């Protein structure tokens, strides 16, 4: 088979040029900082508040997606209804819709005179320009992940097992908790981790609806921008290193989850 040196050479060259060298800039930049300067940059009160918001809202958003995304996947795989193909295709909308567009659309919906805000605000529920708005945006952008990881597992799940359980006298609830849920668990967790990882770094869809008040509704990526605008490149980079490290840990976790998920489905097939 020809072309090994050409394609491998080009792959490594392009990867190094576009990804590795630029990414290494973040780490090299922080090496120019002293340890105390780095530590105070990544643990100031304002940045701590932003971590709590970014990670807290991502956690809630990803959890909501596990519950509702799981139900959506179930309905799309197991039930027949008109318009199913269209709805199925639209689930990917958050991947395809530019984040800025999602951001302004959600803000318009939940602001005081928006389609949804006008009913929520009189009830005392403020969504736009509060941390709740951040959760709404992060739920939106994480929506496809759980659906798309659970769907194929559910499609390939062996109905014979469920039939066997039913014929042995298990009721629907027992079949679900003992047979179906354990099969879906790795996929649910993978979807959760993917949605969570995406949400922690998200910027475009959040900044419009968040209100961006320091200490209250300011996400970490926005705080990096704020630092950059103050020409505090070192401070911005230090926070970026923290976020990158967390992303890499998440990536590793996702890899392990996917390996588990694959093993689980393969051992079931054999």
């Amino acid at each position: 088979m020809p072309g090994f040196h050409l394609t491998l050479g080009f792959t490594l060259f392009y990867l190094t040029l576009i990804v590795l060298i630029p990414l290494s800039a973040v780490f090299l930049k922080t090496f120019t900082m002293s340890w105390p300067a780095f530590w105070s940059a990544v643990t100031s009160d304002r940045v701590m508040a932003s971590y709590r918001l970014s990670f807290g809202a991502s956690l809630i958003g990803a959890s909501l997606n596990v519950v509702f995304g799981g139900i959506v996947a179930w309905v799309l795989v197991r039930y027949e209804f008109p318009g199913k193909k269209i709805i199925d295709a639209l689930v990917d909308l958050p991947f395809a819709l530019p984040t800025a567009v999602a951001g302004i659309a959600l803000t318009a919906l939940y602001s005081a005179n928006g389609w949804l805000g006008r009913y929520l605000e009189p009830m005392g529920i403020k969504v736009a320009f509060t941390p709740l708005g951040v959760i709404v945006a992060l739920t939106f952008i994480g929506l496809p992940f759980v659906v798309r990881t659970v769907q194929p597992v559910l499609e390939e799940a062996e109905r014979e097992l469920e039939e066997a359980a039913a014929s042995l006298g298990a009721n629907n609830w027992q079949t679900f908790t003992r047979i179906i849920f354990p099969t879906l668990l790795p996929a649910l967790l993978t979807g959760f981790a993917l949605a969570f990882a995406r949400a922690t770094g998200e910027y475009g869809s959040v900044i419009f609806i968040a209100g961006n008040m320091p200490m209250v509704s300011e996400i970490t990526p926005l705080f990096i921008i704020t630092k950059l605008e103050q020409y505090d490149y070192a401070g911005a980079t230090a926070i970026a290193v923290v976020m990158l490290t967390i992303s890499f840990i998440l990536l590793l976790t996702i890899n392990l989850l996917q390996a588990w998920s694959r093993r689980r489905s393969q051992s079931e097939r054999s």
Partner: protein
Amino acid sequence: MSAVQPAVLVTAHIEPVHVPKSLSEPLWVRLLLGGIALLFLTLFLFIPLAAVFSEALKKGWEVYLTAITEDDAWSAIKLTLLTASIAVPLNLVFGVAAAWTIAKFEFRGKNVLLTLIDLPFSVSPIISGLIYVLIFGAQGWIGPWLRDHDIKILFAVPGIVLATIFVTFPFVARELIPLMQSQGSEEEEAALVLGASGWKTFWHVTLPNIKWGLLYGVILCNARAMGEFGAVSVVSGHIRGETNTIPLQVEILYNEYNFTAAFAVASLLALLALITLVLKSLVEWRLRHELSEQPLQLIEE
């Protein structure tokens, strides 16, 4: 394979089997679950999508058309098209090369290479922009040198293109790698034995086999390239009529409280998203069709 965006494509889909009556849930459970799913999707997908078009057309067609044909909007559209037309082909060539090397050969460090290719997906868009500021910015590695030679990369078109290439880097590769791995090398080997050159084999044997997967990757890559906001926002400098892509133009109009115009420009991107979804579904259907014709092992390594 792994990354922050699931490869939906190559996981083999099997049509749901017929469900015996005794196994299906009672009617009220089905209605309840269906209702919850529909409510959730309506709240988080359908209404926001409808809101974009409704807000855009709030003041009528004339205002809408003026908003999307106005000079700054038009230059934003041109810049977005230019950016995508550079980023997508480059990542396409990379994707094919990477898939060829990974699918056709065995070598050490392959798994590391696979992880590194997926890396840009797990990086926040803001950090994807920041890295170019650290390299090309005034305080950056080669910033001073660029300034002395009067070359503008940051806060100019080259920076926007670079940031876009970075965020769309994995799209084509990660569709092609599992596809080419599943197809194996027998057909190529046969062509080579019959005397075809490497290039000829690629053009006449490999390319026809991967064309739908390739197209799929390109569609996704293009959608992201045209819609990227965070990374581009960091490196753009927001110069009206010069370094604003369509998403940045939306932000500027919105922050000026020019909501109707912001949504009008945003509706172009929403249309692009809908077209992307339609094309994606068609290609997925086509791919599934082809995969069902050839009984191949579809397990990702």
